[in-house]
């Protein structure tokens, strides 16, 4: 069984990314459990998704603490918030995107520095992969494809047990036709970036 956690902010496309991974896993013959905690997603709140890809047995909709194999952090603060789900030596994919909440803008709280966040992950694992998915998505002219760049990156790192073909097939079933091409490009750019990092 592989447990994946996606952490980010409402509007970053975490729910679509989860559905694509789930559908790809189904196409690859796995069982899947996906649970999204949306809460106030539309209002820029925290969004969290648990994805569990397995062959048999029982899985809870909730990933136990310290046991996710992969954490894909769509936003830095949210990555840090969910670090306790990642297991020792798990894979941490960190998007450098920073979305300041109002409490940071009002100087009620300080946003933790990138180095401080990285240090926390370093205590847990060496498998930390860093990407600026927002910037890469901007290259295909669609910053909204940040989520797909991250999926491409995770696929390129061979972090997921899923085939590239199934992910693309899953994208076709979930993304409206007119946005498909740009998203497939975003996926490939994410894959290419992984090759540079590896």
């Amino acid at each position, binding site marked *: 069984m592989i447990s994946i956690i996606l952490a980010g*902010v409402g509007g970053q496309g975490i729910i679509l990314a989860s*559905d694509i991974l*789930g*559908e790809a896993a*189904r196409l690859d013959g796995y*069982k*899947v*459990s*996906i*649970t*999204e*905690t*949306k*809460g*106030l997603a*539309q*209002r*820029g*709140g*925290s969004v969290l998704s648990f994805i569990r890809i397995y062959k048999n*047995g*029982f*899985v*809870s*909709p*909730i990933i*136990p*603490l*310290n046991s996710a194999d992969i954490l894909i952090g769509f936003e830095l*603060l*949210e990555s*840090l*918030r*969910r*670090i*306790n789900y990642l297991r020792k030596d798990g894979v941490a994919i960190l998007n450098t995107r920073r979305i*300041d*909440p*109002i*409490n*940071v*803008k*009002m100087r*009620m*709280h*300080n*946003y*933790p520095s990138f180095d401080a966040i990285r240090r*926390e992950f370093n205590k*847990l694992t060496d498998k930390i992969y860093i990407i600026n998915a927002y910037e890469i998505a901007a290259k295909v002219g669609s*910053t909204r494809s940040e989520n797909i760049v991250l999926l491409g990156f995770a696929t390129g790192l061979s972090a997921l047990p899923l085939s590239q073909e199934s992910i693309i097939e899953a994208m076709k*079933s*979930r993304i*409206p*036709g007119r946005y498909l091409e740009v998203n497939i490009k975003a996926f490939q750019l994410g894959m290419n970036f992984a090759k540079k990092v590896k």
Partner: protein
Amino acid sequence: MTVSKISVGERILRKYRHLIEESGEYLMSGNDAVARGAIEAGIKIATSYPGTPASDILGAIAAVARYHGIYAEWSVNEKVAFEVAYATALSGLRALVSTKHLGMNVLSDSLLVSAYTGVNGGLVLVTVDDIHPWSSQNAEDTRYYARLAKIPCLEPSSPSEAKEVVKYAFNLSEELKLPVIVRYTEKIATNKEIVKLGNIDFEARRREAKFYPDHERYVMIAPHTRKNHPILNKKLDRAMEIFEKSSLNTVLGPMYVDIGIIVTGVSYQHAMEAISLLNMTEKIRVLKIVTSNPPPQKLIADFLETVNKVLVLEEIEPILEKDVKEIAQSIKRSIDIYGRLTGYIPREYELTPDIIIKALKEILGEHEENKAIAPKDVIPRIPSLCAGCPHRISYLAIKTALRRLRKRGIVVGDRGCYNQGVHPPLRAIDTCVAMGASVGMACGFYKANIKEPIVAVIGDSTFFHAGISPLIDAVYNSANITVVVLDNEVTAMTGHQPNPSSGRTVLGEKSKKIYPEKVAEALGIEFIRVVDTSDFEYLVRTLIDAIEYNGVSVVVIRSPCILEVLRSGKKTSRYEILQDLCIKCYACVNITGCPAIVVDLEGKVTIDPYGCTGCGICAEFCPKNAIVKVD
């Protein structure tokens, strides 16, 4: 008869294929699976009032309603939703009502009497209990209502099971002639798994509505109620008999072991993973109960004979745990019972595999090693109203009006997106309790003789749901309050469902648009103003007049939800900050809290051109006029 002649669009097909196809396996959430289960059961009518996390059940059915020849509606509130479905069921057709737990409070009045008349066609009431809660104002357990109403309650443990349980519930409802509750929690509503489609019961769907008057059965005056009460009790006894033998309840694991688990709902999945993580599959016996009301007493008693200790897992009140205690006493079986009553399971919040692992280890006398907790200093992410949200402007206008009157005022809030106005920097509402409570409580603050202006704020959907009766009370009992209706013409909070203010129905049909100001007029309210958020100064002055008016004043602020405006493809303008004029006072951030305003690491303030929707409220508060409209 198989397929409908009506074709569906590409968008519907992409999103709701699992509700259209005849066979196959699809990734479905618990709510999707319930929608599919109801369609397979051959429902003719589905009703609901939006409420997270239950809203997408009706949303999904409505999207394919035409295709299947089903009628679906967003009713004005849950009570009406229930009554529409109940009358459908009295007429021999199958009907589904769906709601979140709080809707149970609203519909309970009719539900509790409907048990005495019973139904003819299947009536299934699906309730999603947000017991953590993630997006609700309380954490109630609907199972108490099932007991209060004396009707059966079923608790599926996964999306796949939810689909089957809904179909079973329709058959049970027709067999017993009683409404049946299917109850599950947020984690099943949102959990997605692969679910296999089943056949649709076309025979049930083809039934014709017929109502045969039977005064003793349907007219619930006291003598008839007295006659029907024993019939209701017998039906419940019959339910218990059925449940004792139901294959929905299952036993897993070896007999005669030390520890047993009795579990309902999603906790079953948590428990099974916990058992497997602890390598205790061969050491723990598990009884999963789906038929939670009435609880199958003999089944539970027999289970208690096979174990020495029992852990009871349920969400969220210790209802089953108390049943187990009672059953153990009645069979004189001295057994250790662990659960929420004994402190092994926390009394609040949803369960997780970790909580169950910890409880099992404690029962075994082992100590749990410390799990890594999130770094303690992770700052919160405080949510905010969207950039360009008209509620932000309305709240700032109310605050400005009160400030100019040199009053603090009490702003009585209500349920909807606009309760996000409580967060900093707006801090704009002082209470938020229940649908429509803003107006009733405003009357109360006035009658209690609070010497401050009292302003109730209520959204359009909430006004129609439960805000009109207290407004009548305000007029009838001569309150001196101001009621501000934040009319954005849609039920935004729960996913933009249409309501009486939208002028259209969930089936996409045009409907009569109902205006809160006309309701107010009909009540004889003399101070009524209808404004929008485009002219801030005019809005503030209107509110000052309304607050100063002696009596009930109503201000309807009608501005569409900005997300609806953006979705319609309408071009919006945007604003920018002239950097040479900006003195970095941060008034724009600290007063409006607009998420489109960005402060960079050096403290420079800009407006995100992709986030700004051109409402211009930040410009109102810039002391240097450094914020200007660009296009």
